């Protein structure tokens, strides 16, 4: 337990002793802020026009600030996370492999599990800070409207699961190689695949389409953004996270069995 905490502390600190965390968080906030501004501005323009043009009001139907501003926010943030999280995870094992520090780390009296958990949670901590800073957007929504609190809270829970999934896959990619660019490319590629799977459902047959819908990372976020906490979604993310952490452990252990 103590070892895990020491590794966590060291990794967390090292995010902030290099510019990585600052750069990633800044870019993330710029992008998410820009998306948020767009949806909010669009919503207010449509709302304003609808008040003076009843025909338009009929056409766009129900105008709801929760549905039109808060809900897309989580989808947008998750896309930006897709681009940012691999940059946070890529160095976690690759760098240790490249510089050789993994040799010292793994000859200290720590288990592979403690090392992995320390790194995983350190990255999750940075991720949480990143996400926590976006709370400004719901606050702005609340300042100018009356959104429902429920979907916003569940949306954040969903984002947290999505983030943890990204992190576990990113760390797995990082454990495979000593090259950070390869680690990042692998994470981007696999994450985008998992993300986009849901969009090709209509092209597939009903059976495969259904399976792909269920495997898709983004499909499971929609429920959360709508305010629905479905155990299916929770179990999906949970399994995703456990699977990739398990694979990472196996990679760490495989040095023992190889050649």
């Amino acid at each position, binding site marked *: 337990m*103590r*070892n895990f905490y*020491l*590794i966590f502390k*060291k990794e967390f*600190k*090292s995010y902030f*002793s*290099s510019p990585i965390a600052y750069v990633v968080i800044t870019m993330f906030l710029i992008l998410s802020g820009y998306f948020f501004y767009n949806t909010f501005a669009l919503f207010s323009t449509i709302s304003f026009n609808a008040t003076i043009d009843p025909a338009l009001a009929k056409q766009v139907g129900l105008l709801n600030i929760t549905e039109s501003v808060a809900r897309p926010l989580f989808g947008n943030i998750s896309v930006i996370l897709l681009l940012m999280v691999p940059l946070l995870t890529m160095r976690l094992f690759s760098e240790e492999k490249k*510089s*050789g*520090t*993994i*040799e*010292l780390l*793994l*000859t*200290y*009296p*720590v*288990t592979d599990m403690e090392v992995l958990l320390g790194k995983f949670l350190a990255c999750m901590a940075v991720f949480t800070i990143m996400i926590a800073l976006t709370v400004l957007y719901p606050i702005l929504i609340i300042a100018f409207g009356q959104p429902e609190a429920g979907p916003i809270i569940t949306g954040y829970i969903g984002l947290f699961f999505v983030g943890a999934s990204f992190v576990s896959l990113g760390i797995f990619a990082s454990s495979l190689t000593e090259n950070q660019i390869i680690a990042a490319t692998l994470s981007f590629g696999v994450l985008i695949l998992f993300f986009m799977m849901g969009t090709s459902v209509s092209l597939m047959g009903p059976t495969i389409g259904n399976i792909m819908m269920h495997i898709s990372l983004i499909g499971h976020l929609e429920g959360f953004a709508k305010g629905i906490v479905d155990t299916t979604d929770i179990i999906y993310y949970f399994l995703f996270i456990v699977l990739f952490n398990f694979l990472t452990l196996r990679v760490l252990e495989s*040095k*023992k069995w190889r*050649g």
Partner: protein
Amino acid sequence: MIEVENLTKYYGDYHALKGVTFSVKKGDILGFLGPNGAGKTTTMRILTCFFPPTSGKASVAGFDVFEEPLEVRKRIGYLPENVPLYKDMTVEDYLIFAAGIKGVEGKKIKGAVAKVMDECVLTDVSYKFIAELSKGYRQRVGLAQALVNEPEVLILDEPTIGLDPKQIIEIRKLIKNLAGRRTVILSTHILPEVSMTCQKVVIINDGRVVAVDTPQNLTSRVQGASRFIIRIEGPSHEVIKTLEAIQGVSKVIRRDSHAANGIGEYTIESLKERDIRRDIAPVIVNKGWALIELRPQEMSLEDIFVKLVTKE
């Protein structure tokens, strides 16, 4: 303290260790000698539980490296060859991290780190980032992290490589000071280092142990014959004849071609078992010549090494 029995290791098809056996007593400093690629680092990585052997057994302080790696690691201080350290940490932070993770109690960490920084002369750079340090200082940080939990066993892979002569002397002194208190294995391919610091030498070549002994015994064992260098003032021809007549002498060679003030230098080889030094002096004196110098010529460790390694 350390028992290694018939270790083998394959890297894919490459057979890196082909049955390495040796043991180290508590408090000894063992020199691990061999050309590049002989299997020194591989053996050390097995002992530190970085990876297990393909077959064979190794135990440190009574714990098997494969069965109880965590117990072994608790008792080991390891300095890998290229001294990999976290460059984005300061010296002090890194040592605090190492102390904590190696099981030094929370309250004692500060004291342990201060002590080890003092021992390794790091106090002046404690606040510096490791990335800013010179090679010599990094080496010392590496040694400090190995020492910080006062482990029973120290495993040092080429601890003096890449240092300047002054730093080499300092590091050797530091290692020598540990003798008796700690069991040390150090690998090197600098031979004088071994004769200066180690009580026991394991010479390894091509994945096999070719010799295990004290540096002194190795010298006499490999030599096969004792050699002396002798300087005598007297007629060269007669001197050689007289010396060859002494019982036990097998060969006399004149070393210098021209005599300076009648003094000649000769190499005498004799059978190992017989100390001929006692017999030489009276013979020379009886002839009325002057015995200027008589000293044993030892084979240097370098000669032994080359002899052992090229024998195969």
